[in-house]
């Protein structure tokens, strides 16, 4: 069965939505970024004009201002972006029920079953591109191919406002000359490793013997080899807004650098409470914990571990995060920012298997405690009940990640 997969990517999503709403800044360099008065202001997205000045996503606002003094910086308005994201998804759902969102501004569509109704993949892609432009007033680039990886590659191939087709019979001509890092899941670290063994393009990756890649990257190597050869068979998930959430996380850049485990402990507790509370609100329990740490030299690491049981208990999340942090961080530098996220979800209504040795009674008590604290916080605000340990330095811990939650476009990661 020949699949027809589309990947649609809203170009400079946040900046485009802002430019639509403010005609007066459309011809200026524009960036959307976090509150400049705080230390953690970074660029979330920028428009094409700002890009020409070399403004980069993820860099601090002051640095972007240095590159481009006339840069118009707009604080993010996430509810507006969510509305536009929802409007785009509604258009996608006119063509297929297999719509898998990838972040707020991207989505895969499997239109295999719709081609007899709406025409071939490129025709549907063209129609979607046109409709987004007239109905939403922003632009998308769409990739059309026979698997998700190449569809994504196609949407990155030509920007903005374009359709790129990567057909099965001559994908090698289009895909193989591209640099390896254009492939989904090849980040800076993997790219470096690939370059070190002489692999620079996707074509070189595709023709590397499997044993060589497997030896270096394990099962990831096999996966990358499959991707490069167009052998990705992963399906496009059926659209279900309840499952759109795949992880819950919070991170913060603290008002001063963190210098010891105790500082980190305080921050991790604040973050874990927010993450736990958001998971409980949405009715999820998670099993995988990820922490990310960035030191004051802007070098960052990300590490994962698993819980023994699905959980959304704040204390369990915080303690596990602290345990993981202690194992992986050696305090070469003070820390500038830190984050926690929990993924691998299950609905909290699913019964859990208890075991003989765990203290299930204690866990139930903690769950009830979290529930009670949630009610208090909902009624009287996030600061009405706090852990005593956070009060040793209120200026450091007085922030509310839950209400200040930032939604990053996927491109950021």
């Amino acid at each position, binding site marked *: 069965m020949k699949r027809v997969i589309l990947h649609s990517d809203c170009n400079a999503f946040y900046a485009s939505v802002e430019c*639509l*709403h*403010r*005609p007066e800044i459309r011809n200026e360099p524009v960036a959307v970024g976090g509150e400049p008065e705080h230390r953690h202001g970074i660029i979330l997205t920028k428009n094409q004009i700002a890009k020409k000045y070399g403004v980069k996503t993820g860099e601090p606002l002051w640095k972007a201002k240095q590159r481009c003094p006339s840069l118009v910086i707009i604080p993010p308005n996430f509810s507006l972006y969510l*509305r*536009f994201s929802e*409007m785009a998804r509604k258009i996608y759902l006119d063509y297929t029920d297999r719509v898998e969102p990838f972040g707020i501004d991207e989505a895969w569509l499997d239109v295999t079953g719709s081609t007899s109704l709406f025409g071939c993949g490129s025709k549907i892609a063209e129609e979607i591109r046109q409709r987004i*432009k*007239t*109905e*939403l*007033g*922003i632009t998308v680039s769409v990739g059309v191919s026979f698997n998700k990886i190449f569809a994504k590659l196609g949407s990155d191939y030509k920007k903005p406002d374009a359709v790129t087709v990567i057909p099965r019979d001559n994908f090698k001509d289009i895909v193989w000359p591209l640099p390896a890092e254009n492939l989904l899941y090849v980040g800076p670290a993997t790219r470096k490793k690939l370059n070190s063994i002489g692999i620079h393009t996707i074509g070189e990756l595709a023709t590397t013997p499997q044993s060589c890649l497997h030896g270096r990257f394990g099962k990831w190597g096999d996966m990358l080899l499959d991707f490069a050869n167009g052998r990705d068979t992963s399906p496009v998930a059926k659209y279900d807004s309840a499952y759109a959430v795949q992880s819950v996380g919070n991170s913060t850049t603290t008002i001063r650098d963190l210098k010891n485990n105790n500082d980190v402990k305080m921050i991790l507790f604040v973050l874990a409470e927010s993450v736990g509370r958001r998971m409980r609100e949405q009715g999820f329990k998670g099993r995988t914990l990820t922490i990310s740490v960035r030191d004051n030299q802007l070098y960052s690491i990300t590490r994962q571990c698993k819980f023994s049981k699905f959980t959304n208990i704040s204390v369990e999340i915080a303690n596990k995060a602290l345990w993981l942090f202690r194992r992986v961080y050696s305090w070469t530098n003070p820390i500038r920012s830190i984050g926690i996220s929990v993924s691998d979800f299950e609905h909290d209504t699913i019964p859990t298997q208890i075991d003989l040795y765990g203290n299930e009674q204690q866990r139930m008590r903690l769950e009830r405690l979290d529930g009670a604290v949630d009610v208090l916080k909902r009624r009287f605000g996030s600061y009405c009940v706090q852990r005593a340990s956070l009060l040793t330095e209120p200026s450091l811990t007085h922030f509310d990640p839950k209400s200040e939650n930032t939604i990053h476009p996927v491109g950021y990661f």
Partner: protein
Amino acid sequence: MPVYKKYVDMIVRYFPDGTIKPLAVWWDEGKIYEIDRILDIRPAASMKAGGAGIRYTCRIRGHETYIWLEENRWFVEAKGRPIGSVG
């Protein structure tokens, strides 16, 4: 002539099945512009005013004009400059 986004008072009829029909625009000075006929309804963006929503193409006193429903507010592409603006 510059154009700006102007939110307007609307008189709208709600039908039992949940559909709605705009009947008239209530302009600043209390002038009521009745909508003679709705010619088209579709989702669309307004590049001139800056916004997106459901666009109603209406005939008012012989002129064709667009009125947008943006979530729960109505706006038009008004000519001139907003009241109180400089320049």
